């Protein structure tokens, strides 16, 4: 629903990486693996 959408938009960028929570290698790899082919 719109609220949920807004909440997630506030917390995460469009690639699914959190704006505020520190990341680590595994999480970053996961984010990268979900990024579509960006060439």
């Amino acid at each position, binding site marked *: 629903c719109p609220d949920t959408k807004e909440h997630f938009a506030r917390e995460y960028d469009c690639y699914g*990486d*959190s*704006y*505020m*929570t*520190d*990341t680590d*290698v595994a999480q*970053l*790899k996961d984010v990268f693996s979900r990024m579509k082919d960006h060439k």
Partner: protein
Amino acid sequence: MEKTLNRIHPVSDPEATYFLQISWEKDLGTGFGLILTDGQCAWTGTVSEAEISREAADMEMNREKYVEELKKALIAGEESAGKYNFSISRDEENMECHFSYERNLKDGSFRLGSLKLQAVSSPAEVVKELIGYCLDCLGRLQAKNEHLQKENERLFSDWSDVEKRLEKCVEAKEELEVDLYNRFILVLNEKKAKIRNLQKLLNEAKESV
């Protein structure tokens, strides 16, 4: 001049050992020379291109196929062991030797060719030439062997070099990936810390408003 030398045991005297040298220019089908020796006596002869054509025609065999048969019978040596028979009948008086070669079949054999060889007046010279020919071949083959051996060692060393470089490349790729992720993490978390801080300040500012 191409040459081969083979050991033969004639069906006419299976215990005996003879050596048959065939020599030809470019292709056997254009005619060939024969030298036969038992180590003591020697005989020579030639088979001309025309005789080859006539033999093939007599047998109603395709000439190319006939020449292939000749190659297997007279040149191939060990590779055709048992498939071809040789007959030798010496005519001491006329200093000749009747030599024939035939293809062995399951139920019989058919003659491939025959000719009369002339005895050589100085067989020792022929023997020396044959042994000399062998030594020359051995020398060439030995040299080729050594060359191939060296080539092998060089190829092996090249292969193992490239194999090592590949291993290094794979390691480097893995290390690169780990290294880049570690660096990315540092930079990203810096930015996140900044965002957290700004978010805190903004919340405080909103409260004061």
